[in-house]
């Protein structure tokens, strides 16, 4: 699995049937520290993520098909979690609550 950030939305009224009803989000893979790492891509959301969220993504077809319960679906990139906190070497490198005024 990889860490990514949701940067936008993709609306596609004409698409293959297996994607109908699925939310497509534009995501940018990141390093744990938060810098861009690899090409942006489009992911199927399964957890209600939104723009600006740091998310957990998988980029592997078999897992994607199992999650969606669609053995024949041409799917590969899915969002499977919204990240709250990331630590590297005991140091916090990302916290969802930082900068959020309560």
């Amino acid at each position, binding site marked *: 699995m990889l860490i990514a950030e949701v940067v936008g939305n*993709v*609306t*596609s009224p004409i*698409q*293959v049937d297996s*994607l109908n009803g699925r939310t*497509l989000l534009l995501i940018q893979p990141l390093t744990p520290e938060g810098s861009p790492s690899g090409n942006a891509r489009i992911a199927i959301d399964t957890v209600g993520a939104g723009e600006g969220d740091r998310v957990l993504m998988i980029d592997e*077809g078999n897992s994607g098909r199992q999650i969606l319960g669609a053995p024949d679906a*041409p799917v590969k990139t899915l969002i499977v979690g919204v990240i709250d906190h990331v630590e590297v070497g005991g140091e916090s490198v990302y916290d969802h609550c930082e900068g959020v005024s309560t």
Partner: protein
Amino acid sequence: MHLGRVIGRLVATHRYPGLEGVPLQLVQPLDASGQDAGASLVACAVVPSGPGDTVHFIDGREAAIACPETFVPVDATIMGVVEEATNAGQVISGSIAGGG
């Protein structure tokens, strides 16, 4: 899946069995700001896309799975026409009418 823009069409009458009747289109991949990203590529189209359309396409084994015949030598397939793609609330690409 990746964002792309259809920039042309391609005709190849001699093809690998199983690819009969599958349209081939030239696609320019786009990055998260809607700009060209990398070299263009040839993709099968399983939706009614055409030159000027912003699309999303899939690569790898899943590209063949998306084709009518699933055991074909295909590594890129257009799976949807994108009406609108946004980045931080700004529309970066997308238009069924072409361009975008």
